[in-house]
């Protein structure tokens, strides 16, 4: 008994530092949105990234005018940067859903500080991803042929194709992520509505708050809706990157046709997404002085997720070689040798170093406490994960069954500008989000404060 009593005295570290009041949370988060002026870096940053967005618009415009010949795609590499960038961006989105849905089901209460911005990251990353399948088809004006809509050819799409599964998976993913994010926002929008000082703000926030009253008769249904959304978003997020991996795994191409692809892609997606979350959170907590809400403890947990998923990715990279050798398949063995030692070895080793070696630094507590190390590592991991998709897409196609048709893929300036432009889209949206939407889920953070527990005071009295 005595040891059990001792256990109850072990206090968990508070999720929010300084045990603030409910009102402090409301003021702190609402003030960011309500301020007349954004922090000083906001406007220059918006100017820079919206210029990049124009670069995206220009590159896509030229693509529509001239055709996909402006890109580096050329037989044998009929797939190039468009699919690499698509997989890269969809993968980044996955961390947001993991934080909002899977960690919710596991009752990881620390998620409340970062789930709103991570979900926003998901939405914007999926928007960037959706740009590529839409524009890579050549004749963009008939892009609706991808959907099961009646068309002038009286044909229906091919439901046996993984590419069509992908259309459904990614679109459903976007819609469900949007619903999840918006449902989470409703109580906070009502808070902003109730605090509004001008008629315009009151009407705008009021309209988006949908008349939320905040009574328990509403909370009752709301909480269950949130739980159900988390419950369906969890298998969804795992399925989305699995379906993305089917684009490759269902084909007959050496290096693609492997059963490990779905879990390998999902682990990689979460890995890259958490790296992006880490990059963004380090910046956001600093610029908006949110160090007590997004604490070092949060960053510590994110780096541990990076370490775990980094090991999974490293395992996948390694076991692929074993499988290729063990299969006894000449082409399969060849492609893996070519990846590590062939013409694209430089890309392979960038990938391997950034994704497998770099996260090992987080075994050390000092690295998990150092903002500069975390920031640099998160950027390197993002670079590494882009190269992972580059290695997968490019190497397998460049050297296929017939040596006479081998080639070496080179991107053009338009490949590069389009990709850089998507960062413009992503960060423009993210900056607008930071300015106009409460970036931390106020009602959820209040709910995990010690004072929110109805038994809070009783415990203290008995203690």
């Amino acid at each position, binding site marked *: 008994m005595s040891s059990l009593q001792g256990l109850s005295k072990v206090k968990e570290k508070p999720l929010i530092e300084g045990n603030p009041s409910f*009102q402090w949370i*409301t003021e702190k988060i609402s003030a960011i949105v309500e301020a007349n002026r954004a922090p000083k870096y906001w406007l220059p940053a918006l100017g820079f990234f919206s210029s990049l967005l124009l670069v995206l618009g220009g590159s896509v415009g030229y693509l529509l005018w001239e055709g996909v010949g402006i890109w580096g795609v050329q037989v044998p590499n009929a797939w190039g940067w468009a699919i690499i960038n698509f997989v890269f961006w969809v993968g980044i989105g996955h961390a947001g859903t993991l934080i909002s849905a899977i960690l919710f089901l596991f009752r990881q209460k620390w998620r409340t500080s970062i789930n709103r911005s991570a979900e926003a990251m998901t939405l914007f990353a999926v928007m960037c991803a959706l740009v590529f399948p839409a524009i890579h088809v050549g004749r963009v004006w008939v892009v609706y042929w991808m959907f099961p809509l009646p068309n002038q050819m009286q044909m229906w799409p*091919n439901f046996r194709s993984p590419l069509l599964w992908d259309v459904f*998976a990614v679109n459903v993913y976007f819609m469900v992520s949007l619903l999840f994010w918006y449902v989470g926002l409703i109580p906070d929008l009502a808070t902003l509505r109730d605090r509004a000082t001008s008629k315009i703000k009151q009407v705008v926030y009021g309209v988006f708050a*949908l008349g939320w009253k905040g009574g*328990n008769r509403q909370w009752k*249904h709301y909480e269950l809706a949130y739980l159900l959304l988390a419950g369906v978003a969890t298998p969804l997020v795992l*399925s989305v990157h699995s379906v993305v991996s089917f684009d490759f795994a269902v084909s007959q191409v050496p290096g693609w046709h492997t059963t490990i692809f779905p879990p390998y892609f999902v682990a990689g997606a979460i890995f890259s997404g958490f790296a992006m979350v880490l990059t963004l959170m380090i910046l956001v907590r600093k610029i908006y002085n949110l160090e007590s809400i997004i604490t070092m403890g949060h960053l510590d947990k994110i780096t541990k997720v990076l370490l775990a998923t980094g090991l999974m990715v490293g395992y996948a990279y390694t076991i692929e070689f074993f499988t290729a050798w063990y299969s006894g398949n000449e082409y399969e063995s060849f492609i893996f040798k070519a990846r590590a030692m062939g013409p694209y070895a430089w890309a392979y080793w960038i990938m391997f170093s950034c994704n497998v070696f770099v996260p090992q630094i987080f075994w050390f507590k000092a690295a998990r406490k150092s903002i500069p190390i975390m920031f640099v590592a998160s950027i390197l991991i993002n670079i590494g994960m882009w190269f992972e998709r580059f290695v997968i897409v490019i190497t397998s196609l460049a050297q296929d069954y017939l040596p006479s048709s081998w080639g070496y893929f080179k991107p053009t300036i338009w490949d590069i500008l389009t990709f850089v432009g998507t960062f413009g889209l992503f960060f423009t949206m993210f900056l607008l989000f930071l300015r106009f939407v409460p970036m931390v889920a106020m009602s959820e953070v209040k*709910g995990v404060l010690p004072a929110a527990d109805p038994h809070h005071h009783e415990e203290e009295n008995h203690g």
Partner: protein
Amino acid sequence: MAKPYCILASFDSPAALIQAAEKTRDAGYKHFDCYSPFPIHGMDAAMGLKRSPLGLIAAGGAFGGLATAALMQWWMSAVDYPLVLSGKPFFSYQAFVPIAFELTILGAALAAVFGMFALNQMPQYHHPVFESDKLLKTSSDNGFVLAIESSDPAFSTDGVEQFMKDLGAAQIEHVAQEEEGEHV
């Protein structure tokens, strides 16, 4: 004095609001609600509320999505436009699983969200309780507010006010009935 729409009472903490809700329930009031900035654990039982039926609604949405996907893929691939692809049967159900799965999820998510809107009567931009000038607004910040509505059979203005004072309410506010024709 005209009968108010409801009377609001504010409390200091989630625990106090839960206790107030239990006593309100035991006193036999039916038309009451507890407003708070976040959902309070145990409030459903304290108010005597039944479990939300939303799970069934979402299950209906899930089956709707599944049925849509199955029928769509069967009709388009096997009936309206049968085409031999890779020597597979027209109704190659194994290949239809991923889309069936995604649309099941979509159906469940849409039903969960719009079912919640329907049960909560959202969007609803005007409600008499919004006529409150003082207390209701605090409940989206740090206020814990009990509301007893005058439509309750056990309601009497003086009786409820006294009841709330006995509960230890910090502040009490009468929310006036709306005047006719004030609806937007």
